[in-house]
């Protein structure tokens, strides 16, 4: 059941030039904050009518702690970045279906593929799966070295494969380069989150494989609650028949039309 709660901003941290992390504290434990699910954050200013969807980057449900990692791209995220410790945020969550991790068991090999602001949910997922005992390989691509964030988390959770467009860190190339070199035969499940191009590359790369491949989608959202039909996507041959906010944001690569 989603709920709307006040969270206290306990830490605001700049990870790169335009990526920030907010550590937040709720007054009570959190329930249902699973990897791949998201929250809708109200911009604390009368002008913005819509909440902003942000993935759960880290959570300690029992302690009521939540971390969000966001890139400043427009007016809403700019205002979030301007908040200082001690301010309060109204957050609606947790929403969406989350990654299907139920069938994974210790020892399973999984691949995570991410880029840009697709990384935050994968950071949570990597930690979550590592704790389950899965063997986690993560492929991440950045434009250049100064844009890197989150890689310690992936390295700590398993194997990290890093690419930068300019070769300033990791191999020169992008996630596509890494995917081409990947041996898919011994991998139980794939999870991807990032720009449309990345999702398409993942969908294509594993089109002939049989393991589940899960893609986390983005959309402009009105409600985040399945009420406004603002976020539809075509799944399983239907046309705009599912809500990214409700049946998603995670869809099977075999089913979803990108």
């Amino acid at each position, binding site marked *: 059941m*989603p709920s*709307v709660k006040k969270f206290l901003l306990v830490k605001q941290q700049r990870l790169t030039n335009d990526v920030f992390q907010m550590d937040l504290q709720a007054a009570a434990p959190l329930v249902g904050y699973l990897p791949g699910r998201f929250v809708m954050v109200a911009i604390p200013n009368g002008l913005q*009518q*819509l909440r902003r969807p942000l993935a759960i980057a880290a959570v300690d449900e029992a302690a009521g702690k939540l971390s969000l990692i966001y890139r400043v791209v427009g007016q809403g995220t700019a205002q979030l970045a301007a908040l200082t410790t001690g301010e309060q945020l109204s957050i*609606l969550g947790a929403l969406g279906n989350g990654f299907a991790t139920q069938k994974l068991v210790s020892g399973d090999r999984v691949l995570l593929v991410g880029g840009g602001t697709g990384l935050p949910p994968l950071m949570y997922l990597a930690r979550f799966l590592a704790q389950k005992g899965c063997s986690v390989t993560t492929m991440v691509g950045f434009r250049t070295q100064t844009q890197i964030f989150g890689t310690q988390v992936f390295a700590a959770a398993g194997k990290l494969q890093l690419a930068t467009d300019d070769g300033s860190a990791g191999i020169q190339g992008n996630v596509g380069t890494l995917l081409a070199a990947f041996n898919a035969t011994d991998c139980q499940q794939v999870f991807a989150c990032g720009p449309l191009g990345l999702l398409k590359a993942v969908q294509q790369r594993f089109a002939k494989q049989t393991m589940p491949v899960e893609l986390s989608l983005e959309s402009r959202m*009105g409600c985040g609650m*399945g009420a406004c039909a603002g976020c539809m996507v075509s799944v399983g041959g239907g046309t705009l*028949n599912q809500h990214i906010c409700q049946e998603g944001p995670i869809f099977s690569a075999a089913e979803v039309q990108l």
Partner: protein
Amino acid sequence: MSQTSEQRLAVKLPGLNLKNPVMPASGCFAFGDNRYAEMFDLNQLGAIIIKAATLEPRVGNPMPRIAEVPGGVLNAVGLQNPGVDVILKEKLPQLKAKYPELPVIANVAGTQEADYAETARRLSDSGMVDALELNISCPNVKQGGMQFGTDPVSAQAVTAAVKKVSRVPVYVKLSPNVTDIVAIAQAAAAGGADGLSMINTLLGMRLDLKTRQPVLANGTGGLSGPAIKSIAVRMIYQVSQKVDLPIIAMGGISNAEDILEMFMAGASAVAIGTAIFHDPLVFPKVIADLPQKMTDFNIESLSGLIAEVRSQRNEN
């Protein structure tokens, strides 16, 4: 105050005997089958207005469908719905099963008079809806929708066609994108409308500076939210001065004061759309706030306020 809290909030409109005047606006609450319904009991609502129904299923407009502007939201959903038959077979029975006492208003859209009438007939025959809201004001579809709502002759004709087949009262939902809202309201009245619902969204647009193209795939979209409230108040005030029909008011309502302002403008009930996106608990909140706000402004009951406002309007 001598009246009970329930009596203070109750309002009565054709076909609608409401314990309070507050309902979700069409398109902002699906068919009640959304996650807000997990957060509060929909039985608290005065009524529910469901998403537009059309004769055939509609997939709506391509994505993106939502954009933000200062003080408001643009949407170009485009009347996506599973069609009246699925609504009758699945959506409405589910809603009625969960909330048997909750009054239901079905929003009806179409591309021509005959669709409107047939959709309306099926809905009203079902026994599952208490009233119809005739959507002649959707700005997000190429055909039908707003074109009926911007021409008095068509507005009257489609209203009459629907009235002929409907067993339940018909509220005509007006478009604000017109030169003379009173003329359209009068046309709806002449067509036999039992009430009016106003306002639908204003036609707006936002461009993406990077692509130099509209943010919405549809190009234009409907503007809703606080930005349009003063326009809604003006139109409701103007119409209630010339047309005797009860009005369900909407457009930028986000708190109990806004609701009272709508009543003072001439409303008999209200709907809230965009505000729920910001505040998922806006419905229980405004319903709880109303009695105190009414006391603050010396309003004993809403039905009394309606009568007072209407009696002061000079019919000329």
